[in-house]
């Protein structure tokens, strides 16, 4: 492994110099921030909508056949009442008023009808917001706050579940081990293609002979894999750190469920198993992607395989309900122990907590041995397929050399 450090440094440095790496690395957090920003901006309470109405000064007419709307509230928002529904609609059409709300006599059978002057896709929502707010606030004012809370489903509950004599919250328990599943998914999704084409560059650039007479193929492949894993972790940090900071700072504004992160249960056994499954699976799939990349002459040809690999890795997600509801079925055992489908079932089941000890003892060595075999094959294929500039190696050639 002489020169391994040199290869890793070279590969990491040149990846970090590429704009495409940073676009990919920062693209996802920026997209997340944009989505949460939109949610934040549109997360206004109904009360706020009424207040906005007062400030916005848009003219409003109301017909209330339900008799549920409080006239005092209508006065507060400077809405006028009319009795003719068609007149209200016509007033909106001819621009006499900005909005018209029709509350039917029986709200259980007929919808509230809201009409308004178009003010854009996002702002049009204000008419409905005001219609609901007027009704809600009117009804709330007729009952006690307690009854209002019950009707609105705002009565808090506090569930405590036990496993044996210990308090056990399955949702909280799966958060930390579940991080490995999310991380695995994201890293393969983001880096899969890069792993696939990592060795085709040497072929496409015809630098392979210079390389093979200067450095062991194994050192080059291992160096590339380590640098890819390092870059993937960097990518993971770029995603996780801003998400975590964003959650801690803004979870209330974004109406995200409030977790006291310090109270999350830390099950070191499951975290350890999750880390082992993650690490071995990641090496296995990195090796597999490099193996495929080494056996084809160009990045373009390598790209054709990415779909197959992704299907192999993420296909088991379609059976996710089974992993939770029927963890003892032979099908679930098969998917959990077959190395190329195992990562998702194992990581998910470890997070949920239904992975059995014997499966752990069997699955991790299977993945590890598979990873070693695949890595050796990748080196072999790179070595012998190195000078195949125009065709891909056949399976016979890969295994028969």
């Amino acid at each position, binding site marked *: 492994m002489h020169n391994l450090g040199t290869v890793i440094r070279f590969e990491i440095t040149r990846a970090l110099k590429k704009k495409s790496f940073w676009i990919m690395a920062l693209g996802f957090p920026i997209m997340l921030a944009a989505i949460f920003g939109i949610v934040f901006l549109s997360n206004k309470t109904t009360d706020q909508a009424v207040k906005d109405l007062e400030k916005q000064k848009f003219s409003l007419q109301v017909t209330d056949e339900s008799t549920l709307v409080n006239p005092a509230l209508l006065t507060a928002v400077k809405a006028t009442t009319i009795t003719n529904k068609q007149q209200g609609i016509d007033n909106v059409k001819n621009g006499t008023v900005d909005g018209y709300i029709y509350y039917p006599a029986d709200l259980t059978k007929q919808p509230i009808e809201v009409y308004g002057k178009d003010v854009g896709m996002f702002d049009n929502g204000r008419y409905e917001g005001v219609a609901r707010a007027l009704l809600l606030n009117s009804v709330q004012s007729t009952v006690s706050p307690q009854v209002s809370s019950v009707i609105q489903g705002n009565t808090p509950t506090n569930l405590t579940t036990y496993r044996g004599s210990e308090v056990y919250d399955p949702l909280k328990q799966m958060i930390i081990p579940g991080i490995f599943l999310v991380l695995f998914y994201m890293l393969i999704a983001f880096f899969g293609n890069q792993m696939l084409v990592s060795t085709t560059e040497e072929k496409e650039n015809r630098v392979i002979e210079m390389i*093979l007479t200067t450095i062991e193929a194994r050192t080059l492949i291992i160096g590339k894999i380590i640098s890819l894993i390092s870059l993937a972790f960097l990518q993971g940090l770029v995603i996780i750190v801003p998400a975590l900071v964003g959650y801690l700072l803004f979870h209330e504004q974004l109406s995200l469920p409030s977790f006291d992160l310090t109270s999350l249960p830390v099950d070191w056994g499951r975290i350890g198993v999750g880390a082992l499954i993650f690490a071995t699976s990641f090496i296995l799939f990195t090796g597999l992607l490099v193996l495929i990349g080494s056996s084809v002459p160009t990045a373009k040809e390598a790209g054709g395989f990415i779909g197959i690999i992704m299907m192999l890795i993420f296909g088991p997600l379609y059976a996710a309900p089974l992993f939770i509801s029927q963890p003892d079925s032979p099908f679930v055992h098969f998917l959990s122990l077959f190395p190329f489908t195992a990562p998702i079932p194992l990581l998910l089941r470890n997070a949920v907590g239904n992975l059995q000890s014997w499966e752990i003892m069997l699955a991790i060595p299977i993945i590890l041995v598979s990873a070693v075999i695949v890595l050796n094959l990748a080196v072999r294929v790179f070595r012998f397929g190195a000078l195949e500039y125009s065709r891909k190696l056949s399976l016979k050639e890969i295994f028969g050399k």
Partner: protein
Amino acid sequence: MTMTNIISIKNFRMQFGKATVIKDLSFDVKRGETFGFLGSNGSGKTTTIRALLGIYQPTSGDLLIDGKPYTVSGDIKLGYLPEERGLYKKESVLDIMTYFGQLKGMSRADARKASLAYLRRVKLEDKATTRLDKLSGGQQQKIQLGITIMDDPELLILDEPTKGFDPVNRKLLMDIIEEHQAKGATVVMVTHQMEEVERLCDRIILLKDGKAHAYGTIAEVKKKFGNKSLDDIFLKVYGDENATEEED
């Protein structure tokens, strides 16, 4: 100069599928000499070099450098300029040269220093931070040659070194080879340029039909063919072949 063998090839045979490219080839290259490896296109020159350097697995035979099969972790300092030219295209010239210098065992500082010295010599110092794919083909060839010789190798294997060079750069290359000869390096040249062979080589081998057709000093080979010029000998030996542009 001690004239022990640095390269020793015995009963080398190479088969690709059903095609036998090299039937039975044996020859030696002495330490410190410049050896010309001649043959028509497709005669097996590059295949022999690749097998010697462990890129191909020989079907049979012994191909030894310094008495053992070549490995990159061995003791010999090798400079190899392959026929298939190419480097990392998206990196800067200096980064690529430094990287290869480090892979050859130089420290990063020494590799950078040697790279910059070479770039000055070939008048490309202003291209040090330029991406390789922004250079002309000839300039890229010079960079690859620089990588080949940057750690003062004791064995230089140059596969068609002047391919793609204009006369000015060809002269530069010849000068560089002569400098390494003077330092005691062994040079193996695969070439079709008889003028270069006459000027630089001590001994030559002519490969034909997967075997050594002629082998010895230039004088010995000429004598075998009635003291004709090397150009005439080449034409006589290979003139009746339908030369192809396939891999050697």
